[in-house]
């Protein structure tokens, strides 16, 4: 009797998992990634003749909590039209009963891989500012991401930054946000009992998160999110994640390290303060501090000593100061030459 190899079994499993796209305008190309609740495939939109990314649930059925979550994720994304947020094209149910949605196929690299080729700190900060733009936009629309981390940010071939995977997003203001208007709150209510955070990459998902539910990524999720204090989550929870992400961009680790510059270290520390009240009140204010740092100005998170002020002034006006110094040196030389 001959046994199948592991790779052959894996291929068989993938074949069995592959969604049935019959009756849709999409043609399956290849599997890209597996997420917490489904698989993302590359597919071709045969009507428009373009590549799309197709996210499909593992399990059939369009009325379960996972199906509701996927539909809700698609609707939240559809309401967040921003250059820094991946756009959704379509949502529906396949012939095999699985819920899917299609979105822009992003040809790029994950931030944690891309950043290896970006050496300059200012370039990394400018990249970070573009992530802040997208997150600030979502916050303005009343949506929290709740899983900001390098693996959920893609950088395209032209340097475009896209914040991905809004599967854990939380709608903050049900009454007035665009995102909430498209989502059906009745269809997405689902609660899970209290569970502690695990050390895995993503811990837990649910359609609408009940109080006590823990989800997110250790190292990037805020303390209140790790406690499952869902009712009290606000923009400052994402600011914590952004602070951890910033620290990753500067040091290669989301926590336990100190940024190479005092001002940047202070920005990281303020963003990832244990108490939300001590963090930046909004993403815009955090981005403003980063912009001020890039412009050679003092940042709000750090009170400078006189020496630090002088050093920063010198760095900002270095060439001008050197020109003046050259002029004065030349003047002294001329005087010495004349009085020789």
């Amino acid at each position, binding site marked *: 009797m001959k046994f199948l190899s592991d790779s052959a079994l894996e291929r068989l499993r993938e074949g069995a998992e592959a969604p049935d796209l019959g009756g849709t305008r999409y043609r399956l190309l290849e599997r890209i990634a597996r997420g917490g609740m489904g698989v993302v495939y590359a597919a071709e939109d045969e009507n428009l003749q373009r590549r799309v990314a197709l996210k499909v649930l593992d399990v059939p059925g369009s009325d379960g909590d996972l199906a509701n979550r996927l539909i809700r994720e698609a609707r939240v994304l559809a309401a967040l039209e921003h250059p820094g947020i991946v756009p959704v094209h379509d949502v529906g149910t396949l012939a095999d009963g699985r819920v899917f949605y299609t979105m822009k196929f992003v040809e790029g690299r994950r931030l944690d891989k891309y950043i290896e080729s970006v050496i300059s700190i200012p370039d990394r900060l400018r990249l970070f500012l573009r992530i802040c733009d997208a997150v600030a936009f979502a916050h303005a629309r009343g949506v929290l991401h709740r899983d900001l981390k390098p693996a959920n940010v893609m950088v395209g071939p032209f340097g475009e930054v896209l914040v991905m995977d809004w599967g854990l997003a939380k709608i903050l203001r049900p009454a007035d946000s665009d995102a909430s208007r498209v989502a059906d709150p009745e269809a997405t209510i689902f609660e899970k009992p209290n569970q502690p955070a695990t050390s895995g990459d993503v811990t837990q998902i649910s359609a609408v998160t009940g109080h006590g539910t823990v989800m997110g990524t250790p190292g990037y999720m805020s303390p209140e999110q790790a406690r499952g204090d869902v009712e009290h989550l606000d923009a400052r929870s994402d600011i914590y994640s952004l602070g951890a992400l910033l620290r990753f961009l500067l040091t290669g680790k989301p926590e336990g390290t100190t940024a190479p510059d005092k001002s940047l270290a202070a920005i990281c520390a303020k963003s990832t303060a244990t108490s939300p009240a001590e963090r930046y009140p909004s993403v815009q204010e955090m981005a403003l501090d980063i912009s001020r740092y890039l412009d050679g100005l003092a940042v709000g998170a750090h009170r400078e000593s006189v020496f630090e002020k002088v050093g920063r002034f010198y760095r900002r006006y270095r060439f*001008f100061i050197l020109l003046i110094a*050259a*002029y004065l040196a*030349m003047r002294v030389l001329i005087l010495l030459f*004349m009085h020789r």
Partner: protein
Amino acid sequence: MNKVLLGLLLGALLGAIDGGSAWFTPAVRAQLAGIIFGSTIKGLIAGVAAGIFARKVNSVPLGILFGLAVGFVLAYIVAYMQHGYYLEIILPGSIVGMIVGYATQRYGAAATPATR
């Protein structure tokens, strides 16, 4: 501050300081007021020229070169009229031109379009 105004103010200031340095040369100390006035005007002209250039051409190296050239030409004219002190007048005058050329490119604000 817009580029022309920055060039004008910085050129005049550096020109006045440049002229004031003549105090260290006892032979010309009696004409100090005239030297300061002339040097200020020279710096002012160089500054305005560098400011106008910075409005048209957005390049720090070209701005420095232009400032150097204008400073050199103006200082040469002054030295020629003085019949001497070529090095003492041309060298600082050229560097002042460079400084103004750099400053107008680097720190001058671009003109904003008028709004109705």
